[in-house]
């Protein structure tokens, strides 16, 4: 398939955009990256995602697919014979991957994001408690899903690795900003090791933003 057949509307700093980028890398699918300018939305984006008007949007032969985790599944379904499987093959393992991915978006990431906005000490303490509970859940989930292998998906990174790993750069930026270790090797040793392995994966490295660059960007948008 020609590379012009696959386009991704996104932005370098968005963890949600990172998800389909990693998936496309895993499947060795070339694509055109259409970078949105921060603060404005292109005509193409508004036309391709009229419901949410959000990135990422995958355009495959001009047909739009929206919602990052849905795009990742679409990539896995469409290029099923290329590269490793992004979702596990067993229905129960797939259910676990989807369950935790939804939890990460609905609870864990919401807590992480609110940390940066948290006002007083009380609010910060509440967020820290939420994140620690979440991390404990995820540490156990990792042990259950990985079954002794380096990733949630086993030997190779997959859907759940991508769903959580995309937030690692923002996690580091948040840790620096609030001077608090959110992902603590002492409390979540397996998850910490996994994070290191994930960031070193060849499908991830090219699209993971540098912490310094992201921190500067964060200062700009949160000021």
């Amino acid at each position, binding site marked *: 398939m020609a590379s012009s057949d696959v386009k991704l509307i996104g932005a370098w700093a968005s963890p949600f955009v990172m998800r389909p980028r990693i998936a496309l890398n895993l499947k060795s699918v070339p694509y055109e990256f259409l970078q949105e300018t921060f603060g404005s939305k292109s005509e193409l984006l508004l036309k391709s995602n009229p*419901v949410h008007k959000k990135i990422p949007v995958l355009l495959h032969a001009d*047909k739009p697919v929206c919602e990052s985790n849905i795009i990742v599944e*679409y990539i896995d*379904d*469409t290029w099923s014979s290329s590269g490793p499987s992004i979702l596990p093959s067993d229905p*129960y393992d*797939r*259910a676990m991957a*989807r*369950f935790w991915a939804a939890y990460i978006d609905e609870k864990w990431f919401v807590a992480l994001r609110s940390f940066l906005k948290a006002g007083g000490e009380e609010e910060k303490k509440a967020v820290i408690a939420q994140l620690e509970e979440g991390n404990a859940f995820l540490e156990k989930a990792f042990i259950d899903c990985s079954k002794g292998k380096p990733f949630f998906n086993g030997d190779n990174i997959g859907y759940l690795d991508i769903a959580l790993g995309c937030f690692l750069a923002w996690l580091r930026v948040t840790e620096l900003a609030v001077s608090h270790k959110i992902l603590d090797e002492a409390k979540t040793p397996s998850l910490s090791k996994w994070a290191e392995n994930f960031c070193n994966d060849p499908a991830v490295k090219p699209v993971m933003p540098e912490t310094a660059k992201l921190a500067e960007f964060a200062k700009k948008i949160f000021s």
Partner: protein
Amino acid sequence: MAERSDSEEVKLLGMWASPFSRRIEIALTLKGVSYEFSEEDITNKSSLLLQLNPVYKMIPVLVHNGKPISEPLVILEYIDETWRDNPILPQDPYERAMARFWAKFVDEQIYVTAMKVVGKIGEERDAVVEATRDLLMFLEKELVGKDFFGGRSLGFVDIVATLVAFWLMRTEEIVGVKV
């Protein structure tokens, strides 16, 4: 309630008034899967529920051969992948992506917005009704030329959208507003 075969043990912890619980029953029924239904009192959650869904402590929870699955959309996909007759999700990857998109839209946008009507009056209520109507228009467009979201027969989005067909209408009656 239902017979249990030796090879499969399917149990559903649910609640009669919950659209999320009912949709699982619809899916299991469509697939011809026998299951045991366990009605939960959500004001007094059973220790079994808390044990099987420690993260959200909510119904529905499907238990298949002792293994629990939570979150309605996750359960629906699990059912579709485990019992292959009468497929709920389409085969084509793009159609599947669309089905997942609209299902998420119903649960995260329509349901959440519509439920805000509870306890509101006057202008605030009007704003919620207006917002819900706008969201429903997106769904309306998807039905053009089709009897069901799934085409000729019930599919994933139809099952999820029973929330709209049934529960939204009941809420209209209770709250006294027509969306």
